[in-house]
Structures are given as C-alpha cells and as structure tokens.
C-alpha cells in the first residue's frame, strides 16, 4: 500500500476558483519525488493541502490508508508530514538554536531534542558556529539550511519542500540539492516542488508533471527530462530556464 494517497482532490483559496481540479497521486515510502509543471499548475497548492494548511473542497488525502485531510497542520505534523514553504519561514528574532528547538515543538523529551540537534549539526556543520545568531541576520543559503535543519528536527516521514533553490546562488543551491538527496538515506520520503525542473528531477527518483491542477504524467525522473514531448508541452520554459544558469 502506498504511504500517502491523494484521491481526486479539488482545492482553491477563499472564494476563488479551483486550483487543484481533481488530482490523484500515490507516494511510496522511502522514495523521492519531484513535482514539476508550469506556473499556476497547482504545485504549491498540492503541498499545502497535504500538510493541512489548506483543506480540500472535495476528495481526500490518506496516510497509510487512513484519512488525514481535514486535520490541522499540527496534527498532520504529529503524523510525520512536514512542509517547508517557499516563502521566508524562519522565526527571524529567534536564534538558530531556538529555531531548531521550535522544529521539535511537539517533542517534549529534552534528550530526544538534543539527539536530533546533534544529527542536524552533523548534516550542517556550519550551523554549529551560528547557534547563537539571530536567524534574521543569516545569509539566504544559511537560512535555507536552518529551514531544512528545523524540518529534520521533526523527524518526518514525509518531507515536502517547496522551491528550496529560490533566490539562492547556483553554488549554494547545489549544496542544498545535495543535502536533499541525502534525506532519502535517512529514510525520509521527499516530495520536492521545483521551478528549476532540471535540477529538481536530477536530485530525485520519480517525476510528476502537473498542469492546470491535475496530474499529466509521472515516471522515472530521468525519463521525464529525456522525453521531448513532455519537455515541449509542459516544461519548455522551466527547462530552458534551468539551462540558462
């Protein structure tokens, strides 16, 4: 059985139109996925539905066969579904350490929190020197490391990351992608949304193409990059943008 099932979900914001128009997906444990597609395809909206910030208008999301759509974000987080949004998401007036501790807000056992913090510092040794610095004063790349580190503090089953390379210098973005690739080895199922389709697909196993709020195609990530038809129909702009850099 799939770890996560998205079943015929429609969703939108406020009284606006449907952004997701009946999408169905299955996500298997331990794999890494990249969702690609043109602007407005509903990629970020899908992640927001899965993590509970946005509730579906119809359809449902199941985790291990149990319905989870309709739960609050904190309840979904307790189930191991963690979301890293694309907009600036740190607590700017807290230190790096406080931000990481906030990541484990639902964990009341101090020893576990410290254990996870050690693991984060192993992955991001640079953060160790910055523990007492206010998060708002870090560079963009460092902030993204804290964001990912904070997500690891949750010890998530599913980690959904929205546009991790947004606004980062290419070298820094490379580091971030390398780190995300390493998450699979930790047993975390990764769902990545990435505007830069080439980079995103290169660092994941399975690709999902979204357009107009529904799934158009899915398959092994490298196959999508090589398929001229998909490139032309859905990824033209996104791929050439990646090639420019």
């Amino acid at each position, binding site marked *: 059985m799939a770890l996560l099932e998205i079943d015929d979900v429609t969703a939108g914001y406020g009284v606006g139109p449907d952004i997701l128009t009946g999408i169905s997906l299955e996500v298997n444990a331990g794999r890494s996925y990249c969702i690609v597609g043109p602007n407005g395809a509903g990629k970020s909206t899908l992640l927001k539905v899965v993590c509970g*910030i946005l509730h579906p208008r119809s359809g449902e999301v199941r985790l291990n066969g149990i319905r989870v759509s309709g739960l*609050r*974000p904190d309840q979904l*987080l307790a189930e191991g579904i963690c979301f890293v949004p694309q907009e600036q998401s*740190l*607590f700017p007036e*807290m230190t790096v350490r406080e931000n990481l501790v*906030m*990541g484990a*807000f639902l964990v009341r056992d101090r020893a576990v929190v410290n254990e996870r913090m050690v693991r984060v510092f192993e992955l991001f040794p640079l953060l160790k020197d910055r523990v007492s610095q206010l998060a708002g004063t870090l560079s963009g790349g460092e902030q993204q490391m804290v964001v990912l580190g904070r997500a690891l503090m949750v010890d998530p089953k599913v980690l959904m990351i929205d546009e991790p390379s947004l606004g980062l210098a290419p070298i820094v973005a490379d580091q971030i992608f390398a780190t995300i690739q390493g998450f699979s080895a930790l047993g975390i199922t990764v769902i990545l949304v990435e505007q830069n389709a080439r980079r995103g697909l290169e660092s994941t196993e399975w690709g999902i193409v979204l357009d107009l709020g529904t799934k158009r195609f899915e398959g092994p990530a490298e196959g999508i990059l090589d398929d001229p038809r998909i490139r032309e129909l859905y990824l033209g702009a996104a791929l050439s943008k990646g090639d420019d850099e």
Partner: protein
Amino acid sequence: MTEIIQVLVLGLLLGGVYALMASGLTLLFGVMRIVNLAHAAFIIVAAYIAFYAFDLFQIDPLISVLITMPVMFVLGLAVYLPLFPRIESSARYTEMTVLMTFGLALVMEGLLGFFFTGIFRSTRPPYATDAILWADLFIPTGQLLATGVSALLLIGLWLFLRYTRTGTAVRATMQNRTSAQIVGVNVRRISAISFGLGMALAGASGSLLSYLFPFFPAQHWRWVALLLALIVLGGLGSLKGAVIGAVSLAVASAFVTNQLGPDWSPMTFYLALFIILLVRPQGLFGKALRI
C-alpha cells in the same frame, strides 16, 4: 534641576501604567493582527469591577487585580471565540477587526452606561491621595504603587513569553504565523490564549486606573486613542516598543504639562503620532508591515 527630575519622576510613574495598558493592545496585534479599538472599553469594564469590589466588599484595587485579571481573561475568551475565528481566514482580517472592535466598543459603552450610569467613578484607597517626600521630590504613593504593580506584571509577561512552552509558541506565532503552524503550534489555541492574556492585562490596568483616574463609560475613546499613539510609536506588535513608547510619551507629556499646562498634555500623544507616521511609519521597533 530638581524641577526637571521631579517632572521626570512624575512622567516615569505614569509611564509604567501606560505601558501595562498598551502591552495588551500590542499583544493582540502582534499575535493575531487584531486592532482592538475596544481595548480601553475592556479596561473601563475592569475598572467598574474594581470599583464595585472596593465599594461593596472593601477590596483594595491593588488586590482586586487578582480578581479582574482572571475575570477579564474569561470575558476575553467569551468575546473572542464566537466573533473572531470565523473571519480569521479573510484576506482583510485586520481591517475587519477594526470595524468589529469599534462596534464592540459602542455596545460595551452602551451597556456600561445602562447598568452603571454615566457619572464619574473612582475608588479611594487610603494611598490614592498620599505622597512621599524624598530628597525634595514629591512622589505620589498611588502612582508609585501602580507603576510597581505594572512593572511586576510586565516582568511576569516577559518571563512567561521567554521561558514557557506556551509563551514560546506565542512568540513564534508573532514572528511568523505560518511557520508556527508548520512546526506544530496550534495557532488557534495560541490566538485564543493570547486574546485572553491581552484582556487579563486590560483587567489589571482597569484595577489600577480605578483609583488613578476618575472614569465613566464613554471615557474609553480618549484612552484608546492615547494607547494607539503609544503602540504606533513603539511599533505595532512589539512589546518592547509598547513599553518604551509608553514611558517616553508619558515623560514627554509630563514635561509639556509642566511647561505649557495640563491642557496641552493630550496633544503630546497626537503630535508624536503625527511625527512618527511621517518619519518612521513602522514605529521604533516595528517591522515594515505586510498586511
């Protein structure tokens, strides 16, 4: 020289109480983006509770803080839960709260007038008119005690926000609401608690106000205008800003009173409001707003 110090002391003694009043208002904006125009009306409600506690049961206003705080906390929740969460997802939430709390203030004023009439009230504990003479300085005992209680409560608030799990969640929600949700903070619960907390601070302020300034139902407009000036100076949503804004404007108005007479004192606040909006609209400690 003594005169300058004297005016400074009087200003500082008022500033502590102003800071307590403003802290609740800025907390509501910081956590929930609520502009609570009814804040001073809640303070007046608490002042009436303190007045009747004193009048009927001889409970000292400093002691009645222990009554007004929990009562106003509960009253705050009773007002918050049915009214605010339902409009929370609106893109115009802040603007809607301005209208809603304006209406709330009118309703409360009407009810207060109906039940307690419009006449001036004031509690008269023995220290209200006492003063200490110390090294040529005239220190009104009532104001000294009120500022002391305010300082204790503000320190308590700071400790709560800094060192408790719930307090940390409140700070996280103030800094980034979506992220707080993402790390597992139940922001609905935190919002309700913060509203109750803001009202509890209004409650304590009401007890202190009951003997410092005579009050009547419609007087809350004057107070809320003043409080808004204080927190705009400090930066909306910043507790540190509210305290510094309150103390500095209280001192400034004390000097204006001393130099130009008490009639000019209210002007200080609005003039400061005017200048800060022109020069630094986000206030001393506020972030440039994204509403």
